[in-house]
């Protein structure tokens, strides 16, 4: 059963097309993330699902029921806002009970639901505090408890972790994932943070300028970007513009990018003389062998030589910015490998691209 079906939804504000013919669906109990840069239309899409914005065209179905023109109070969507939006004049308990009192549930039912969600989110101790006495993380837990207490058909979250500090964000990310699996609530989550999206989602939908760029599992999105935008947005990829030199077979081709020859797999059908973009993940490099065979390497396939411009240490790995004939290249190597090869600023360095993906430059 589909928890949510969004069909051909569009919304514009004056000249700006905020959401442009967006369609997707979410299976019941699954977690979908709308991921994209700010202004890509992901929040507007979420607000359309929640009924806070009416779409110009298209339809929204929640649990097979069309809700396109229903006001939010008739939809039974739990909504978690970036700014928490707790009622400042009510205690935590009253905040959680709010939706239940509106629904005129019996007193003992309200009590038991408050107990259940506050145990789930570990906020039993906070029930009698006011929102201004809580930390950011606690406020977000309460907001989540309040949204879950109404047992929503679908849970909508708009960058719920964006206002929290990095450490807390990391911990709440795990908790959110467990919570969603436990409650089996269909969830649509909006974020611009790809790590968050990759960690939490069953599926990710990438939006750009109001349109859907790609929908897929985190693994698909990460390893098989469908468009140049996705390749540039997800992961830390190097994008090199070039031309096809030679097709090896139905899957592989050799491409020439600014004097560098790369053998890669193409992710979409290509015509032979088309402009292409070679995508190499920053983590898909290794440093080429010793000094003696460096000369041999220069024109070999998938070997890129350049001078080291910047070195950044980030704990478990080093990031090297390499100036090459095809432009600046971002290379990430493990600390071990980095220290073994003794890379220094200003050195000539050859790296081998282990995995190259080829996309049509038109996409």
């Amino acid at each position, binding site marked *: 059963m589909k928890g949510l079906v969004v069909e051909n939804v569009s919304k514009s504000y004056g000249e700006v097309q905020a959401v442009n013919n967006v369609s997707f669906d979410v299976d019941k109990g699954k977690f979908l993330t709308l991921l994209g840069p700010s202004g890509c239309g992901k929040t507007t899409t979420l607000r359309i699902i*929640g*009924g*806070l914005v009416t779409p110009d065209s298209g339809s929204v179905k929640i649990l097979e029921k069309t809700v396109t023109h229903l*006001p*939010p*109070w008739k*939809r*039974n*969507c*739990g*909504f978690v*806002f970036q*700014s928490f*939006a*707790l*009622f*400042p*004049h009510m205690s935590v308990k009253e905040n959680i009970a*709010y*939706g239940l009192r*509106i*629904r005129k549930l019996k007193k003992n039912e309200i009590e038991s639901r408050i107990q259940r969600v506050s145990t789930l989110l570990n906020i039993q101790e906070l029930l009698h505090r006011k929102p*201004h006495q809580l930390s950011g993380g606690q406020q977000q837990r309460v907001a989540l408890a*309040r*949204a879950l207490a*109404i047992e929503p058909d679908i849970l*909508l979250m708009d960058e719920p972790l964006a206002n929290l500090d990095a450490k807390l964000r990391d911990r709440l990310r795990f908790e959110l994932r467990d919570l969603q699996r436990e409650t089996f609530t269909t969830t649509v989550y909006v974020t611009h943070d790809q790590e968050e999206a990759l960690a939490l989602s069953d599926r990710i939908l990438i939006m750009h300028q109001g349109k859907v760029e790609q929908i897929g599992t985190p693994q698909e999105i990460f390893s098989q970007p469908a468009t140049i935008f996705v390749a540039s947005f997800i992961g830390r990829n190097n994008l090199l513009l070039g031309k096809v030199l030679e097709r090896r077979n139905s899957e592989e081709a050799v491409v020439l990018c600014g004097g560098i020859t790369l053998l890669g797999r193409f992710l979409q059908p290509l015509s032979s003389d088309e402009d292409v973009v070679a995508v190499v993940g920053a983590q898909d490099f290794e440093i080429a062998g010793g000094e003696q065979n460096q000369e041999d390497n220069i024109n070999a396939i998938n070997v890129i030589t350049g001078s080291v411009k910047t070195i950044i240490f980030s704990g478990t790995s080093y990031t090297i910015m390499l100036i090459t004939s095809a432009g600046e290249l971002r290379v990430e190597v493990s600390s071990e490998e980095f220290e073994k090869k003794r890379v220094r600023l200003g050195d000539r360095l050859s790296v081998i691209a282990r995995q190259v993906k080829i996309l049509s430059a038109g996409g």
Partner: protein
Amino acid sequence: MSRVSFFRIVLLMLASLTAVFICVPLAMLIVQSISPNPVLWPKTFTLKWYRMQGSTIIPAVITSISISFPATLLAVVTSLPLGRALVRYDFRGKYLIRWIIALPIITPGVSLGLAYLQLANTSFLRGVHPWVMLVAVHTVLVFPYTARSILAGYEMCNFILEEASATLGARPVQTYFKVVLPILVPFILAGAVVGFARSMNDFIITMFLVQPDFIPLSIQIYRSTSYGTPPLTSALATILLLFSVTFALIAEYTLRRVGGQ
């Protein structure tokens, strides 16, 4: 170092002088009201002026409250939808309206009083009881205070709270009474208290519109000067002063509670 302390002393003296300038006349007024005869520093004290005035003080206070209370209530009731419209919606003339709200504060009382007097004398309002006219005019007087305070309240009550309430199942009316209004209460109280005090204290505009059988406290004070017994007037003025100070304290207290939230 010594220069700094020199300026400090000058500053302190100036501040004290200002305080003295404000407080001493008021203190003298209060002393006068409890002194048996009009001297600067009486040897004995008495409440006889208050007792003597009992027959005029109480009706005057009642008259004042019968004007100021409904006027404040009306001003609050009209400020609520206006504040919402100004904060939540965009329309032409929005900023003009924001500016007009302050108008009764800056318009000279003489002009306003005269204008209303002419209105009362020349239109269909001619025969109505002065109470009706005075309540209407005082509503206009109180309105800037309630409207500005309530406007600030709406600005503090984030629209996201209303959206959150809607997603939790509340209709707009439920949202208004359960979320918006409770958040506005301190702002309503603060505006109403200051407005009420302003209305109680008004002399000029009220002067134009009173009739002999309907005299509020501020006018009664003025009239009592013609009896030629200053302590008598002082007693009346002290009562008005007490009203104002009480309301100012209440306003200060409620505003502080808002700030603490």
